[in-house]
């Protein structure tokens, strides 16, 4: 079902309503009676994908209403379609993005959404099973973007090794270059490291915690944006919320990190240094998560591309600067 792409559909842009809609719907003329409508449905219904939502058009093919099979069935046979139809019908434009049609279907629970052209002429319908497929594809695309893999519509098992690699290598390369910037930062602290190599022992933990915290905040924000729960206007609220979360999480981690470092066999001065760095890392991570996703939204880039990989690099750089500076100040090296 779904996706029966008429040749004509290919003229519409990719991912548009026109591309995915079906042209197999039941169209009723405003002056039919309920009995006429039944006869008509019986005549054409066999070839139609969806006979449960019928659309009513006027003489010039313009969409003026909708009537469900349920209403037809429960109505008097002599009534006119125009009298029983629902005139306030939500429709989509043929050039709309399929994602917005999908959200409408999910939001309103419609079986189908009519698609009209600029003159409000009915040209097709988008059905609930299309919505299911679109939702699945969009989520997959977001997952891939968030993991820095180029989008692909070919199923995993039928994609060759070379192609799979090429979807991933460019991003990894780009990220290694970003990560070298962090490397230069570390290099400028080389003297401190030579004096106190023990500092390095906590670098993996700090980096991983920072990366993870940043992934957490960016993921919830990206998903919230994708679902329309969070918009640009909420930037202040989100920042404030992430800041509060950072302090709660940071305070808790301060304690657990302190204990961990002591058990690891370091003194309390070192423990305090690592803990302060940890607290700073959590705050930096969460705020960077907010900043990057909202920046993406502002410049109209999909926030999903700002997720984990890019984010982690920025967080690492900032977290290490804080860590080594703290170490220099507190441990006097």
């Amino acid at each position, binding site marked *: 079902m779904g996706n029966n792409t008429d040749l004509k559909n290919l003229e519409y842009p990719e991912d548009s309503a026109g591309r995915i809609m079906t042209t197999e719907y039941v169209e009723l003329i405003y002056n039919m009676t309920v009995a006429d409508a*039944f006869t008509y449905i019986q005549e054409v*219904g066999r070839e139609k994908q969806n*006979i449960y939502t019928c659309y009513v058009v006027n003489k010039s093919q313009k969409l003026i209403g909708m009537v469900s099979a349920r209403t037809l*069935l*429960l109505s008097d046979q002599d009534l006119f379609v125009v009298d029983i139809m629902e005139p306030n019908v*939500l429709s989509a434009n043929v050039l709309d993005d399929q994602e917005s049609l999908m959200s409408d279907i*999910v939001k309103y*629970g419609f079986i189908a959404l009519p698609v009209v052209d600029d003159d409000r002429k009915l040209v097709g319908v988008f059905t*609930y099973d299309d919505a*299911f497929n679109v939702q*699945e594809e969009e*989520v*997959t695309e977001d*997952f*891939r973007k968030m*993991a*820095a*893999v180029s989008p692909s519509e070919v*199923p995993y*098992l039928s994609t060759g*090794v070379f192609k799979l*690699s090429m979807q*991933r*290598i460019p*991003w*990894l390369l780009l*990220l*290694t*270059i970003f*990560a070298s910037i*962090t*490397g230069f930062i*570390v290099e400028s602290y*080389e003297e401190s*490291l*030579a004096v106190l190599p023990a500092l*390095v*022992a906590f*670098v*993996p*933990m700090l*980096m*991983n*915690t920072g990366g*993870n915290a940043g*992934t957490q905040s*960016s*993921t*919830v924000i990206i*998903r919230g944006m994708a*679902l329309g729960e*969070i918009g640009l206007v909420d930037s202040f609220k989100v920042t404030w*919320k992430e800041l509060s979360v950072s302090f*709660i999480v940071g305070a808790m981690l301060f304690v*657990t*990190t302190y204990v*961990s470092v002591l058990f690891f066999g370091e003194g309390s001065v070192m423990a305090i240094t690592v803990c302060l760095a940890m607290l700073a890392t*959590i705050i930096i991570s969460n705020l960077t998560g907010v900043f990057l996703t909202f920046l993406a939204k502002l410049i109209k880039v999909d926030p999903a591309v700002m997720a984990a*990989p890019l984010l982690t*690099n920025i967080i690492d750089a900032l977290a290490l600067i804080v860590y080594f500076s703290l170490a220099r100040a507190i441990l006097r090296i």
Partner: protein
Amino acid sequence: MDKEIAILLKEPGRNSLRQILESTNTVDLADELEKLDGQDVIIVFRMLSKVKAAEVFAHLDHSVQQAIIKAITDREIKVIIDELFLDDAVDFIDEMPADVVKRVLSNVTAETRILINQFLQYPEDSAGSLMTIEYVDLKSNMNVADAFKHIRSTGTDKETIYTCYVTDNARRLIGVVSARTLFLADKTQLIRDIMKTDFVFATTHDTRDELLSSFRELSFLAIPVVDNEGILVGIVTFDDLLVVQEEEATEDFEKMAAMSPSEEPYLKSSALLMAKNRMPWLVFLNFSVFITGAIVARYENIIAALPVIVSFLPMLMDTSGDAGSQSSTIIIRALAIEEIKISDFWAVLWKEIRVALFCGVVLAIINYIRVVLLGYDANIALIVSAALFTATFLAKTFGALLPLCAVLLKLDPAVMAVPILTTIVDASTLVVYFNLAKLIMHN
């Protein structure tokens, strides 16, 4: 429109408001209602017709539902609960505090009360908790004309009339017939002759994932749900499944970012709850210091002698983290949408190993050139590249292996996710890197 409703409310007679309420669909009305102040919500809600009020109520936020229930009379409560589809009623009651539940249940018929209590007992996330009982059931000895008569007399209260269910005298499900078939059939044909007997059904304890999986295959408008004895107890409709699909995706996103899943929308969750959801894995990462930190500590003398090698650590660790999440994300998602199954275990693993080798080699070569061009010693470039190859290879292989193993062990593949993966890969990378560095130093 939010301003409009608030303004129109002040007009004498409120006729234009009545018109807007009449012509706006229930989902949008619920959105608008949520934006109004406490007292206005009740006033507007009371202006709605009985049927519309129930539909709007079903779409409201639980906090608004609660406010309304507290403000209206017992009689009004009864009307609303009677009008609600059972699945919406159960959803609502499930989220209410005990005193509200008590008041609501004392105002409905004994029959409804028993049904609601029974539905509340189905495990969360099971087909039983998603289904509703407002379906059309037909008998096999009816003819098409009888069926239409039956639908006409009962159809207004049904959630869907487009798929009708045929039951025997013991209420066991024996067939399914679509409204389309009824429409296109001759009026005198018997239901038993036109019904489909090889239909798909779910049982009350099926999980949401199992429902989504059949929906993916069949795109039904509704799926019948039977109990252990094959007795028809309800249906799950497509609109609920679309919402389930959205929720499951959100849950997977959260799990993969190493968080406990939450059902509350972001802006409505308290900072404390959010902190609680994020804490466990972050604390776990604290303990990773005993693995990765311990490894680093063992090689402290190398760091002291050759501190430059530390400057490549962030790059190695980030790249391995990214390479691992690429593989695990793709595998987790492919498993979720059933693009790959557990029977593909070896095919997938073999494929990822080859991808890992390829990516590792390409990255190592390019990195070698880059490090040399930056003016580092060729030996340094060599160990960094060798470690980068190891990191990429291990990250990708483990990234694919862990979700696959999770499925083998019947665990959710999305859960294992990043922290464990990162710790394993970081530890292996550090060991390789420092040992190579040691070799070079001795030469």
